[in-house]
């Protein structure tokens, strides 16, 4: 009993510490999806052998999936 209370209170502390930041992250991610849809990424990649690789790596950084 004591054990599960300890685990949950640790989890709750982490949730409190991160809650606001998560809300912010969700909000920006949502907007990103409308303005930069993962399905349309390929349009931004262009042609060539290595350029698309770097662009894909860069575009993948903010996109949460």
């Amino acid at each position: 009993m004591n054990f599960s209370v300890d685990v949950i209170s640790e989890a709750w502390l982490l949730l409190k510490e991160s809650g606001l930041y998560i809300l912010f992250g969700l909000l920006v991610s949502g907007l990103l999806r409308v303005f930069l849809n993962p399905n349309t990424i390929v349009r931004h990649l262009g042609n060539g052998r290595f350029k698309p690789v770097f662009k894909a790596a860069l575009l993948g950084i903010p996109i949460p999936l």
Partner: protein
Amino acid sequence: MLPAAVTLQKQGANKGAVTSFMISTPESGIDSIAITYALMDPIMTVARPVVAFFTAAVAGVAENLLEKSGSDKQVHPDLTCPVDQCCDGINCRPEDHKRHHSVAEKLGAGVRYAFTDFWNDLAGWFFIGLLAAGLIAVLIPEEMVKTYLGSGLPAMLFMLAVGIPLYICATASTPIAAALILKGVSPGAALVFLLAGPATNVAALTVMAGIIGKRATAIYLVVIAVSTVAFGLILDQVYSALGVSAQAVVSGTATNIPEWTEMAGALALVLLSLPLLFRKTRWAMRAGRRFFGRPTASRTDTRPAPASPAESVCGPT
């Protein structure tokens, strides 16, 4: 993340670009960057996306170098409208479609997506991550970590061995990594877990072998392993050069955010998760009833079942 990779490949992106996208997307995102800043420290917040970028770029370049011929397929992007799927972008060019929705409509759609579908996909895994972090905090004695997992190559290889088969997303892995650092795991080893955890798991690797081929999957895996361990070792050097103790910084997260706002943020997340909880419970009860052979409701339920965790944003599918 795999569906996006499939569409990317179908749309004509080359293998290197697909590989690159498949690494940098799950390893880092706005949501996981935000939570890293909250639970860890500024160095880690920067290191995570930067290392994800290099790992992705190296894997993509390796893929295209070792591939015999770069295909020059025609690129066919999927231009379906992300606001309300009002058109598929084929008979309606992006220039025309621009006029279909106002900025306010787009913002509304983004906000709605963020707090419904997106959070629904993430919430279950995030709470599992929190509980796992709680378990680590309560169960694992600090001495054990110091003796066996402190730092250096062995600790990183251990994190790699755990992170590669494990099924976890970037956001959910953050509290776990923070809990590990508090127990004395080195920041470099934690970074290995943060990057290898989301980028790979057993199910995803199997599916991936089907999408980009066995050889390409092997390259993907090797690059991730080598790159994350190398950057882990570098990160430990950075911390010691700066004279920063990650353990002290993470435990001393005395943010200047007032207590009541923190509480409000946590409660808001819990409230947002309630609809998901109800749906899951109802779904589980219905599944249970079906399992035990009781006749279900007379009318057939045509509503789609809630997305299973396997279809989540963190998922291997």
